[in-house]
């Protein structure tokens, strides 16, 4: 029995006057960590705002955790949202702000204080808890935003560009946190326009462009499905020319490019190619092979092929 989707939209569209933000999106987002990927202006934030009840659909429906989201405040016990905008009550300290927000979940003063301290500890802001948010650095502000999203231990976290403005160490820590939350059983939807960030968090993606969903699922599966684009395999070998002569004999090899110590092959049937290569290596016919990589079996290539 497949688990119920955490977000389910049916023909979901959103217009801002004449401008289309989201266009006929029908998608079921499974549990786990899902990366919402797309260039700037693709509709990621619009989709997230519809998911979190900030906006009303112009057409279609959206259900989150099996319930309608608009006009359903109780669902926010189960959802935590980290918005993109850098906006706070600058005069409040991090602890005061988090305490005040989580009190809106019905916690008592004491419970709220404890929850706020825990959340600050998770995002590494315990020392800055008593400092005004107005004096925080960009990275600290981003982290306190994350803290308000996780403070009530929700089932679903919706994070809109959570790594924006962070330094490399901060990014690494946050990515690690996201993976940890995913392992703990939370569902996360994380948006970004930076491909390698998403790749480092998850292989389950939702690709969006011009308000439409281009692809969804595992990035490798998606790559396999894009069969009009042959796969590129990069083989670094001791005798690249000899290797190239061997490859030419096979009809799935569409093109070859010789480099100084490697040969770049384009193949229409990567599975067959890899099996053959393994046999060649085992037989010693191909000589010494140092490295085999696939430069386009990644998100960048998928994105590039689909968005082009």
């Amino acid at each position: 029995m497949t688990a119920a989707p955490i977000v389910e939209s049916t023909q979901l569209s959103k217009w801002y006057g004449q401008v289309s933000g989201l266009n006929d999106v029908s998608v079921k987002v499974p549990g786990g960590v899902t990366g919402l990927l797309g260039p700037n202006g693709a509709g990621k934030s619009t989709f997230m705002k519809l998911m979190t009840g900030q906006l009303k659909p112009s057409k279609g429906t959206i259900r989150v955790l099996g319930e309608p989201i608009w006009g359903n405040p109780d669902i926010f016990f189960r959802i935590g949202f980290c918005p993109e905008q850098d906006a706070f009550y600058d005069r409040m300290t991090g602890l005061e702000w988090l305490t005040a927000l989580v009190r809106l979940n019905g916690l008592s003063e004491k419970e709220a204080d404890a929850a706020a301290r825990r959340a600050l500890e998770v995002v590494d802001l315990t020392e800055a808890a008593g400092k005004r948010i107005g004096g925080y650095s960009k990275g600290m502000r981003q982290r306190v935003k994350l803290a308000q999203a996780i403070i009530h231990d929700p089932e679903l976290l919706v994070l809109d560009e959570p790594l924006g403005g962070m330094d490399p160490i901060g990014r690494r820590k946050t990515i690690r946190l996201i993976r940890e939350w995913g392992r703990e059983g939370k569902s996360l939807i994380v948006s970004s326009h930076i491909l390698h960030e998403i790749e480092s968090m998850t292989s389950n993606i939702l690709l969006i462009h011009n308000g439409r969903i281009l692809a969804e699922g595992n990035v490798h599966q998606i790559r396999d499905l894009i069969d009009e684009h042959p796969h590129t395999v990069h083989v670094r070998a001791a005798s690249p020319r000899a290797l190239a002569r061997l490859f030419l004999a096979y009809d799935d090899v569409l093109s070859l490019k010789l480099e100084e110590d490697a040969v770049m092959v384009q193949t229409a049937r990567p599975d067959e190619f890899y099996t053959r290569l393994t046999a060649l290596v085992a037989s010693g016919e191909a000589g010494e092979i140092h490295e085999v990589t696939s430069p386009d079996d990644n998100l960048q290539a998928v994105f590039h092929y689909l968005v082009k």
Partner: protein
Amino acid sequence: MADSASNGRTVRRGPSFLTASARVFDLSIGQMLWSRRTIFLALVVGAPVALAILFRVLDIMGFAGMRVGSRTIQGPTIFGIFIWMLYLRFIVPVLGVFYGTSLIADEVEDRTVTYLFTRPIRRGAVLVGKYLAYLVATALVVLPSVMLVYFAVVPIGGGGLAGTFPALLTDLAMLGLGLAAYGSLFAWIGAQLKRPLVIGLIFAFGWEQIVMLIPGYLRRFTIAYYLQGLVPHAMPQDSTVSFLQSVLRDVPPAWTCLVWLAVIWAGFLLLAARVVERKEYVLEQ
């Protein structure tokens, strides 16, 4: 926060509307009292106090300007002038416009409204909580200012505090009602309309001023009409407009004023909460 089981899954319910409003009040009151706008608030309510103290000092020094012939203008009359011209016609409507129209608009402009709208509380509770914070913040500043003015000016010309104290209490209650009524009207205008501040100013300083000059029923579509019915002082005549207003004035009974002010307060607050529940707020990027 109540939990109830439904279909084997625990369904959590957010805090009640009033509890949620109270929590939003807690969050907002500090911001309202300790923001830069407080400087404006302090200047606006501090100026009458400073003026009142000045008049008292001038009276003590025997300044001729405070006298007409050999008689000093009476303290209670001066207090009545302050109430009419500063508090009733300016301070209360302006604070209502300023704070009332920006209850949600400020949060939207500052892009912090997201944090409030993604909590398990009704959006209407956010508006009501912020409205309560406005009411308490302005009352805490305006009403003491009125009292200070009272104590400063009433003794001028030998006026007695004991005899005029009931009038002070009436004034305080009337101004409190004014803050409540204007606040709720402008809260609705702020929630519903674009450019609520200008529309609020047009209402308070355009519509209300002009309509009070026109005899008939139109003036009942103002808050000033009902508030002025509760003022225990004679209306001063400092200009042609106020002269005409005093000549054309009809004073409704106090109970009518109280009922209509309560209706205006509750009605517009309810409408404002309803608008906020249904409206989507698109934040500027």
